[in-house]
């Protein structure tokens, strides 16, 4: 009896599995070879539910606007998880496009799974007006070191310091004067010392700001023009005096901010900890990116006026006209299906058109990536009504040049992690040696560069 039961169980198991496999196959295969059916174009993203909602609306509009393609969006975990998945997925299973951080452009440009936009732009007879109207600094950030367009911004972000205007006025600080890490330290000392708030500043804990501070100042921390005149072979944190001085100043300021309790614990979650404290007036400044604007304005809810100044530079030297771009772009994924990839190109173009790009920017807080989006009625309304302070960012953008971008480096993740570790080392320990922290970061970045170059050449 038991024997029969066990056999039956095993049978059910086997049957169940094959049945599941089959039924899944039916739903799983969506190859649209039929020419009358629209081509299904899939976008892989790491955006969470809110931003996917906005993207979905743009995709719905696109799908309704023409009959050749239907775009659908699939969530694939965090950015790291999604990248790992793309890297090991066979071409036939890949989507037609994916989202990726702008700092990873060099990595994508060197990868088989990414089809640079440039060849599609060259073949496009209709032209792409919005591309020409894109801010130079963001356009350059999405190009490889030969000037070919790799991707296009989906959300154009940018480092900056959000401030509580009431508190700054009370403390007698002019926000526009906060331009370097020394300025930031002085402002925090004044704010906390004067008893205006518990903390001067909260930091979004990300290695991105480390490079942004250098880029702002026009400092190239890597050889071959930060990777734009040739492949990077060397990290200059220790050997180059200018770079080293800038890093020393910046990290010393970080260390002083924490030694004197002027900042919210480094590493605190920006949504759970920092924005609420900023909104409640416990903290006057928040170093983050403009894409957090909507969250901040929602939390503050009109309790005080929120302003923003561009990312501070590491020191007071240099040209200070660089605008290292942040944010997320869309890239065509090389899945071997030309029709799908062409559809991806059309969708990327569609997203860049004035109304669509303005919709995404005004909903999320990202910057308008091009002139058409900026000039659109809805974006102008955003600038005049929702967040007037954003104009300071555009003023700064107008003055920007290509003096510095993010380094064009294929090991951006390792670089950001090493930079973040250097910041954590000095913020966590007032006695930590700044030079040692710089040296450790330099060594691990150099090792990653050497390994990458050895493995890929």
């Amino acid at each position, binding site marked *: 009896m038991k024997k029969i039961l066990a056999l039956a169980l095993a049978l059910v198991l086997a049957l169940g599995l094959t049945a599941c496999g089959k039924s899944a196959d039916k739903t799983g295969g969506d190859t649209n070879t039929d020419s009358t059916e629209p081509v299904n174009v899939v976008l892989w993203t790491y955006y969470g539910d809110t931003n996917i909602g906005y993207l979905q609306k743009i995709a719905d509009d696109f799908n309704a606007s023409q009959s050749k393609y239907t775009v659908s969006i699939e969530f694939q975990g965090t950015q790291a998880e999604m990248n790992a998945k793309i890297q090991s997925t066979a071409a036939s299973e890949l989507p037609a496009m994916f989202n990726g951080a702008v700092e990873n452009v060099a990595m994508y440009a060197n990868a088989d799974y990414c089809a640079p936009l440039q060849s599609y732009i060259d073949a496009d007879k209709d032209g792409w007006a919005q591309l020409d109207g894109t801010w130079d600094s963001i356009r350059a950030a999405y190009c490889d070191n030969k000037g070919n367009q790799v991707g296009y911004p989906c959300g154009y972000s940018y480092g900056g310091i959000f401030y509580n205007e009431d508190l700054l006025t009370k403390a007698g600080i002019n926000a526009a004067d906060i331009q370097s890490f020394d300025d930031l330290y002085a402002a925090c000392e004044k704010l906390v010392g004067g008893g205006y708030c518990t903390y001067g500043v909260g930091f979004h804990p990300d290695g991105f700001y480390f490079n942004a501070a250098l880029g702002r100042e026009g400092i190239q921390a890597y050889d071959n023009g930060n990777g734009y005149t040739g492949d990077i072979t060397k990290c200059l944190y220790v050997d180059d005096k200018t770079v080293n001085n800038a890093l020393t100043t910046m990290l010393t300021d970080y260390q002083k901010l924490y030694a004197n309790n002027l900042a919210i614990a480094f590493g605190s979650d920006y949504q759970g900890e920092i924005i609420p404290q900023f909104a409640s007036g416990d903290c006057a400044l928040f170093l983050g990116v403009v894409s957090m604007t909507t969250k901040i304005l929602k939390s503050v809810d009109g309790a005080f006026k929120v302003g923003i100044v561009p990312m501070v530079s590491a020191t007071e030297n240099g040209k200070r006209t660089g605008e290292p771009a942040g944010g997320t772009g869309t890239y065509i994924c090389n899945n071997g299906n030309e029709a799908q990839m062409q559809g991806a190109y059309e969708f990327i173009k569609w997203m860049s058109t004035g109304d669509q790009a303005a919709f995404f920017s005004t909903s999320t807080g990202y910057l308008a990536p091009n002139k058409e989006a900026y000039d659109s009625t809805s974006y102008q309304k955003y600038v005049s009504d929702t967040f007037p302070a954003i104009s300071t960012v555009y003023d700064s953008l107008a003055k920007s040049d290509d003096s510095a971008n993010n380094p064009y480096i294929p090991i951006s993740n390792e670089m950001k992690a090493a930079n973040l570790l250097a910041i954590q080392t000095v913020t*966590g320990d007032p006695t930590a040696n700044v030079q040692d922290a710089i040296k450790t970061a330099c060594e691990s970045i150099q090792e990653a560069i050497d*390994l990458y170059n050895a*493995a890929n050449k």
Partner: protein
Amino acid sequence: MSRQKELPLTKRKRARALPYLLIAPAMALFVMFTFYPFIRTILLSFALTNKSGNFTKWVGVDNWVRILTKNSFWSVVGITLKMAAVNLICTMLVAMVFALLATKKVKFSKAYQTMYALPMAIASSPAAAIFLFIYRQKNGLLNNILGTNISWLTEKPTAIWAVCAMTIWMHIGVSFIFLLVGFRNVPEDLLESAWLDGAGPMQRIRHIILPMASPQIFFVVFMNIASSFKTFAQIKLLTQGGPANSTKTLIYYIYENAIINGRFETACVQAIFLFLLIFLFTRIQFALENKVVHYQ
């Protein structure tokens, strides 16, 4: 006559093949999803890989030398050992106490028995959401209760304990259940005769319950060694190895290299090292098995 002779022979052949047949399904799956990838891991630890984790060229023992000569690697190993020890010891102790408390079945004993094991039913991501709420600095529950203002997860002295606390909380349930089954299987009459002989509760635990349940205890220790070393989700969800690498264990380091950085050969070396570490501790435990464990 010949038929009679043949039958036992085929039967014997069948009997000889039977154990292999019984093991075959499990082994086939292991080969496909564990041994094949692990052998690949071993091979790749002597090579360089591209971002997709594919072989590009042999480098001999270079990777091993590069990684094993780095101080940062050994500090990660130190943190791994420290966290594994804390997790293992605390999980075992608390689970043992809970299991002893719940061994005797009384009316409504199911109430506390359920509670002691309940966290095992909770996945790490929802649990982490709750612990983040407890640990957060501003309006965090723990700071509310203690009247402190500590950023539990971002300060070096507290982060490692905060992660361990959540890990232990999550691991206790499973150990508790297995220990409880073991303790309850200790024959009632043995306990009774011991009681009649005048043995107190502590003596009964030491001389009867623990030896009789030793196979279960042995299993729970074995399981906890592996799981303590492989604790991953809590670190990823609570601290991402920070602050300043103070909660970065080998398993998180492996994840960082393989998944985030695409440095597979480095991850491979570290994975083999972690494997050897777990192997070593398990060997020690097995060496003790024959001395301590009591099979009926």
